[in-house]
């Protein structure tokens, strides 16, 4: 029983990181109609930038600062990428709604570019992210490592923040309007290009947060984005692609499935379980768990 609970806790904390990346992928998709394949690299970049901030701030109480710093930096990198590269493409393709295949190829290209840029700056070695979290917390028989606790708390705070932003603020309302229909949003007096930057920036910041959160558990390395991208896509599709709460639930499901599979069946096939789950969900409910009419978004 204790083994099972341990596995679930590990699964949930990894899963919520998947959920965070899936959430940001879904946000870009529902907001800008872009399927962004370079998002794994944004996550990787977030982890490295977190490391950079970490070297400035030092250990000690700086971890929330590291998280925030990396989110802000990566957010601005994301905005720059979108402004410089994606916007030309989407504009030529008839605006964000019909971006289509060109955009997909471009984001694949961006993923390779970012990998190589990171390689040039930080090299091929896996770097440790030595954040001292202190001793695990013991609840009954279960020893809960603090890093996992950190992950869960930070991710929940970020997700709640995003939810409140979208539902309760004037700017969030505008973001939802832009997500649903850009022409009508224009007629409401909303500065649509600015909102597009905002959405992309927020999505990149969330992916960066995921990278910083996973850093202390895994190493930080150039190729870390590929694995998570695939898992996060699986999570997003399981939850219903483009659905924000769905992405989080999908992430948790993928994380727990993976952890249980690795614990009870075999760790060698760790990466298979997520896709077994994906296939199962797609067979039973092709639009994903929360997937409804694709036209009613945001």
């Amino acid at each position, binding site marked *: 029983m204790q083994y099972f609970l341990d596995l679930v806790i590990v699964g949930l904390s990894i899963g919520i990181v998947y959920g965070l990346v899936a959430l940001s992928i879904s946000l870009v998709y529902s907001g800008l109609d872009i399927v962004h394949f370079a998002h794994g690299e944004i996550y990787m970049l977030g982890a490295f930038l977190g490391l950079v901030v970490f070297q400035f701030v030092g250990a000690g109480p700086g971890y929330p600062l590291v998280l925030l710093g990396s989110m802000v930096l990566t957010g601005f990198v994301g905005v720059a990428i979108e402004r410089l590269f994606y916007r030309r493409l989407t504009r030529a393709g008839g605006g964000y709604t019909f971006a289509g295949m060109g955009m997909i190829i471009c984001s694949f290209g961006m993923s390779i570019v970012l990998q190589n840029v990171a390689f040039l700056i930080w090299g091929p070695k896996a770097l440790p992210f030595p954040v001292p979290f202190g001793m695990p917390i013991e609840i009954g028989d279960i020893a809960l490592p603090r890093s996992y606790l950190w992950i869960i708390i930070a991710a929940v705070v970020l997700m709640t923040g995003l939810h409140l932003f979208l539902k309760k603020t*004037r700017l969030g*309302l*505008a973001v*939802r*309007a832009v997500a*649903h*229909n850009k*022409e*009508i949003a*224009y*007629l*409401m*007096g*909303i*500065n*649509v290009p600015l909102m597009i930057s905002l959405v992309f920036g927020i999505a990149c910041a969330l992916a960066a947060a995921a990278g910083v959160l996973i850093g202390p558990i895994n190493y930080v390395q150039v190729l870390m984005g590929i694995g998570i991208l695939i898992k996060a896509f699986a999570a997003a599709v399981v939850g219903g692609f483009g659905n924000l709460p769905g992405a989080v639930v999908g992430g948790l499901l993928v994380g727990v499935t993976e952890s249980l599979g690795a614990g009870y069946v075999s760790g060698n096939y760790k990466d298979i379980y997520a896709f077994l789950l994906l296939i199962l969900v797609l067979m039973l409910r092709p639009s994903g768990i929360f997937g409804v009419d694709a036209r*009613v*978004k*945001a």
Partner: protein
Amino acid sequence: MLEIDSVEGGYGSVQILNGVTLKVARGQMVALLGGNGTGKSTLLKAISGLLKPTGGTITFDGQRIDGLRPDLIVRRGLVQVTQGKEAYPAMTVEENLRLGAFVRRDRAGVRRTLDRVFEYFPVLRERRGQLAATLSGGQLQMLCIGRGLMSEPKMILLDEPSAALAPQIVLDIFRIIGRICRDGMTLLMVEQNVRMALLLAEYGYVIKDGVIHIEGPAEALIGDDNVRLSYLGGTVADRDRGLGLH
């Protein structure tokens, strides 16, 4: 208030507007009439900034607005009211209305305008917490008109307020549009329902093939043989059905 001078424009290489000229004075209601594919909607897009005109000038309140980004045109007080189907279905009635007031920062003022909109359309007050997806066609149209008023514009452009609505509901909506105009609003109304539009408006333009074909005071247009033949239908049967252009 709004002066459009030989505006040209279209989509890609397809030119739709071939030099449209029209004028709307302050406090006036003007009807822009025409069948499908004559350039009505394209002209609206050119005015509201969704389409960059390739020629001609558009002047609003003494300043050129052609080629300006749509949100900046809204900030100058010229708002396009969309058709009812363009309300945001996944948002509540109140969220839709608040979105209309996006350019405003004064909370108290927004609340006052909200009350005024609810006064025009009491049904929206009853349903303020409901998703727009649950509204009927007529209510959606009311919501869109209300949304357009929320920014306290100087002038509104109405895009076919009668589209796809039952005659009785069209009558209700036109009555309220008339009231909004009497309360001091300047309106340019694009319509296919020619008879209703001309009964309400002071002046009318008929657009055809991207140019203004006929223009004149509304009473004169209703009496005009050309308009009658082309748009009002010559037969008793048409008149009884209350159809304009079909």
